[in-house]
């Protein structure tokens, strides 16, 4: 038997069949890894989208905010989430001329910039009139970031976040995160005047 041509052995004769078998296994495990990675990626993306939708829905309510107390109450009911988020109300698109008053360089105006969010605040003067010049985070001396109580947050700012201002997203840091943002129209009542504005919600997973 050993002298037969082409005969290697009982096992040796099966060795060539291992090549397609190994190919098949490589193809299968590669495809399986791809499918698993894709599933994980999409599941994470859906969770992020649903979290942002949930936050937006609670803050938005019926698209009418009656004042800072109303906004704060809605903000306090937001669920704990593993995503970091910043949400707030801005008039950058509905009143650009007044929004620019709050900018140190008005020529930088680009509408709503999710990497440099500026929210409306509720500064009123001594006659309880809404002061347009104090509107966008400037106090009476023209300085930005009026913070009388020294807690690090701008007084009466329509901002809701689970992070400090120093941790907010920048363009550079956004490259390492999957950022989801949503913008919704919202009506904000200030001193009996109802102004159209936009609710911006930006969230990212660590």
């Amino acid at each position, binding site marked *: 038997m050993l002298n037969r041509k082409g005969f290697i052995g009982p096992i040796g004769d099966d060795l060539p069949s291992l090549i397609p078998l190994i190919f098949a296994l490589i193809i299968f495990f590669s495809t399986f890894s791809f499918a698993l990675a894709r599933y994980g990626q*999409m599941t994470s993306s859906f969770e992020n989208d649903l979290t942002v939708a949930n936050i937006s829905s609670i803050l938005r309510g019926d698209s009418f905010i009656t004042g800072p107390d109303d906004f704060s109450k809605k903000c306090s009911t937001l669920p704990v989430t593993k995503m970091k988020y910043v949400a707030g109300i801005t008039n950058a698109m509905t009143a650009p001329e007044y929004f620019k008053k709050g900018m140190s360089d008005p020529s930088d105006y680009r509408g709503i910039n999710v990497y440099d969010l500026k929210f409306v605040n509720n500064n009123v003067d001594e006659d309880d009139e809404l002061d347009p010049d104090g509107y966008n985070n400037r106090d009476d001396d023209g300085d930005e970031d009026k913070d009388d109580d020294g807690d690090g947050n701008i007084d009466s700012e329509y901002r809701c976040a689970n992070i400090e201002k120093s941790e907010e997203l920048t363009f550079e840091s956004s490259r390492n995160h999957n950022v989801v943002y949503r913008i919704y*129209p919202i009506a904000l009542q200030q001193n009996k005047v109802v102004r159209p504005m936009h609710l911006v919600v930006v969230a990212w997973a660590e």
Partner: protein
Amino acid sequence: MGGVGEKGQAAITDAMYFLLIVSGLCVFLFVFSASYGENVSRQINREFNAEFTASALKTILYSSTARDTTQSLYEYGAEIDYLLAFVKEDYSDDEKFSDEILVVLADDINAVMSPYSSANDYLFTIVVSEDRKYAFTLIHLSIFTFTDERSAEVSVSDPAHIDYICSSNGVTDRKKDILKTNVGNTAASFSKILLAKEKPALRDYTTIEAETELVVWNPKQLPSEIFNVGDWDCDDLEDIRANLSSP
């Protein structure tokens, strides 16, 4: 006849069949996983569009406006009223809106829709329920042309968008339905409002029911049988604004 050499050939053939079957199944798995979640993503985007449109309509209807249309809502000392009240008052005397109100309404709508307006077209209407008269129609359109037959290259006009205000003579339910049917997927929001009609003899007013609707869609080239400026009797919003400011 038969023999040891034939066993090896059978093993390779078996392995080749195995490779073929696994390859087929892996192609199926690859195609499925590559498209996994696309339907859900599309549904999430549709939900967002619907929510944006609903919020936009509510914001427009809740808004205030300065009664002196040369003033802004943010000006110190401006006399402020609800936009709907202002609109109702303007409609009551002659059952149509003045050019001033047309511009105020259009500006408010465009401001609210501004984050969306560069990538979407929309239509806002106020219709008197009783006689289906389109008291106000604003249509925001993207202006572009396909520069090759395969529709792979687009030439965008400057300005890229135009806002048209259409008169009540030119707009009907049928025309609007044809437009909505032919622009693809739309997100729409709808609300009832009240207008008023003067009864001078009685020094009184009649309340009229009206409907507002906001429809949003992705920009699409509209053939003339779907939308035609002349047929819909529309004017450019900027022309109306220019006529207002000229003496």
